[in-house]
């Protein structure tokens, strides 16, 4: 049956800059906001935008991600027709190869896309944190009779050179695309959310594949090629919270952003819920001698110490006399008596013994304790 929209989530990129935390995890599977994994945001956006056919393109360390997504039930994506499909690279008649770039990853799944037979293909990143109604973007695309629409967000001009910048006319049509310009002419950065008419995208992907010097990337190759050939491209302006959490600092910062009163992401919004695989844990317990201030605490946590400006994932235990501030602690980590932690990310299942000191209060760096780390009592770790 023909579909109007097929969403493809690019989830195969290596998490190089998060490797100090966990080397064996695809970036979209990293824990964020206590109980979520990063990909929950994109999947929930799809569910909330009534997009019920989603392909997730995986390649790098996909095991946790694959089992997490499963048949897509938590995001209401276990559908009779459509639903979620995990798409790793596979062996074809003429051999097989890894995904060589974002565009190549989609190109290699041409048969899957044709099988779903969509009118539009929505290309998304699995490692961005934001809430967005894709349905509105699709309406915009139709209204403008666009052939390719790129979502843009205003960024501070001084940071614009880190992004792909769209130069647009008054009607939002794009006349120029600058990938990481030294002298940005504009502050409209691409969010890596693309909507294409499938017939057109298919043609450009095939052409790009023949070009041996191409890096097979949407931003670097496909969009400029389309612009050059006069394809109708529009910029769809997005307002709201958006963060690419590709580094330890940005992952930490995005968690801290959640603690701000009236933070834009507002996880408490009943009309745009973020769905996830909910942990099987009893309620959290906060003891009489403990103190919890400006923090987010998940199910199954047991708090006997002090927690300030921190985000705790399910099943974290904080012992007596522990002091934790400005820190993100991931699933089932145990922090024993009298340990002090500042400005850190503590990986899942870590066991931090008594009287350790982790991180520095006045440092500009974020201290990382990798997943499954066992720390002897009394260790000073910075």
């Amino acid at each position, binding site marked *: 049956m023909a579909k109007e929209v097929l969403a493809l989530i690019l989830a195969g990129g290596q998490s190089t800059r998060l490797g100090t935390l966990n080397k064996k995890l695809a970036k979209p599977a990293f824990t964020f*906001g*206590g*109980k979520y994994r990063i990909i929950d945001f994109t999947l929930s956006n799809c569910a909330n935008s009534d997009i019920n056919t989603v392909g997730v393109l995986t390649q790098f360390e996909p095991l946790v991600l694959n089992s997490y997504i499963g048949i897509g039930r*938590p995001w209401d994506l276990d559908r009779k027709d459509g639903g979620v499909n995990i798409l790793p690279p596979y062996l074809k008649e003429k051999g097989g190869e890894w995904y060589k770039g974002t565009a190549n990853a989609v190109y290699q799944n041409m048969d899957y896309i044709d099988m779903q037979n969509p009118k539009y293909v929505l290309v998304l990143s699995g490692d961005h944190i934001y809430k967005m109604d894709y349905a509105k973007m699709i309406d915009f695309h139709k209204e403008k009779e666009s052939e390719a629409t790129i979502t843009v967000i205003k960024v501070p001009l001084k940071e614009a050179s880190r992004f792909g910048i769209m130069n647009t006319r008054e009607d939002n049509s794009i006349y120029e695309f600058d990938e990481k310009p030294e002298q940005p002419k504009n502050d409209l950065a691409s969010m890596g959310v693309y909507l294409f008419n499938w017939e057109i995208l298919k043609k450009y992907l095939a052409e790009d594949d023949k070009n041996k010097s191409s890096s097979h990337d949407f931003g670097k190759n496909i969009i400029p090629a389309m612009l050059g050939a006069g394809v109708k491209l529009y910029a769809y302006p997005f307002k709201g919270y958006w963060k690419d959490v590709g580094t330890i600092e940005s992952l930490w910062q995005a968690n801290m952003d959640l603690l701000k*009163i009236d933070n834009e992401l507002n*996880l*408490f919004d009943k009309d745009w*819920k*973020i*769905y*996830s695989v*909910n942990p*099987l844990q*009893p*309620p*959290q*317990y*906060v*003891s*009489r001698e*403990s103190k*919890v*201030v*400006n*923090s*987010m*605490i*998940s*199910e199954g946590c047991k708090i006997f110490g002090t*927690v300030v400006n921190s*985000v*705790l994932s399910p099943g974290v235990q904080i012992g007596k006399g522990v002091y934790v501030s400005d820190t993100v602690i991931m699933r089932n980590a145990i922090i024993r008596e009298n340990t002090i932690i500042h400005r850190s990310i503590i990986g899942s299942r870590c066991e931090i013994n008594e009287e350790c000191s982790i991180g520095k209060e006045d440092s500009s760096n974020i201290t990382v304790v990798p997943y499954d780390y066992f720390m002897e009592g009394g260790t000073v770790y910075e």
Partner: protein
Amino acid sequence: MNNILGVINLNEKEDKIHELTYNRPIASIPFAGRYRIIDFALSNMVNSKIDKVFMFTRNKYRSLVDHIEHGRPWDLDRKNEGLFMFNPLINYYSNVRRGDMDIIRDYLDYIFYTKEEYIIICPSNMICTINFRDVLKKHLEKKADITVVYKNIKESDEMFEDCDSIAIDEDGMAIDLIRKKKRHNNVFMETFLMKRKLFIDLLNKKILGADHDLFKDTVFELKNNKNIYAYEYKGYLVCINSIKEYFGRSLDLLSEDTMNNLFHQTWPIFTKVKDEPPTKYQKNAVVENCLLAGGCCIEGEVYDSVFFRRVNIHDTASVKSCILMQNTTVEQGAVLEYAILDKNSRVSKNMVLKGTMDNPIVIEKGQVI
């Protein structure tokens, strides 16, 4: 392996807990911050590797149907086995409380056509973590016809008022059922194990009897000609049959020992989970000795309380020794002590509500005070 059919018999008296059962059976009263009472019985079934469960409801089963969701949270949404809900057929004696025998008998053909050799029957309001495989093992060892389950409590124990108890002889056989008031220290957990065939015989035998017959009476009428073994359960047990018990036992959960008794890694309690963000503690929050589910937002002061999901405590509000169910709000300056707020209720600014441990104030579902 799967030779046991599980039966959950929701034949539970609500007269002392009616404030919480206007719209729901006891089985779907919220308990322990993120569960419903039925979750414990269902989890016992699946943790005991019983994957076919029949649930016999009474009236007001809508909230239960809503919670059960075809049994998915317990992994009981199966092609062949799984969870079957049997709601009572039309009650032709509208004012008469029908006995559980009669209700189950309406669906006797379902019990007849299953293949499991044994049947285990339990209620929902005896909250425990019992392994039915162990009960079966003892049942076989003792060559019993019927096994009933009890827990031995201290003579001085204030709990389990209104529960029946059983008299046991020196060989560990149950010799009689002792009805409530005549208190005894072997609390009967209203749980039975027997061959399915015997169960069917018992139901058939009474087919001409009165329609208010209780299954437990029928079982103990056999005390002289069947071997009824009394299995002693030693773990966590509470019986939710009154507001007082509900309130007291809920607050008991605020001890680490009690929590560890009820929740252990090897015996997960499954429940239907809503997607809620983690609970947010604001800058001036004071939280001491509390159990909280997800999605709460705490700005005020809370002590010795149990909160379900999405509870909002505004700044300068104070809550002490209370049970706040999902989606309840306590506004600025309000003071609450010894109270139960049912779902979706709200306590307005500067209201003061103070109950006592034995007599907590109960705010009904959806009320604004």
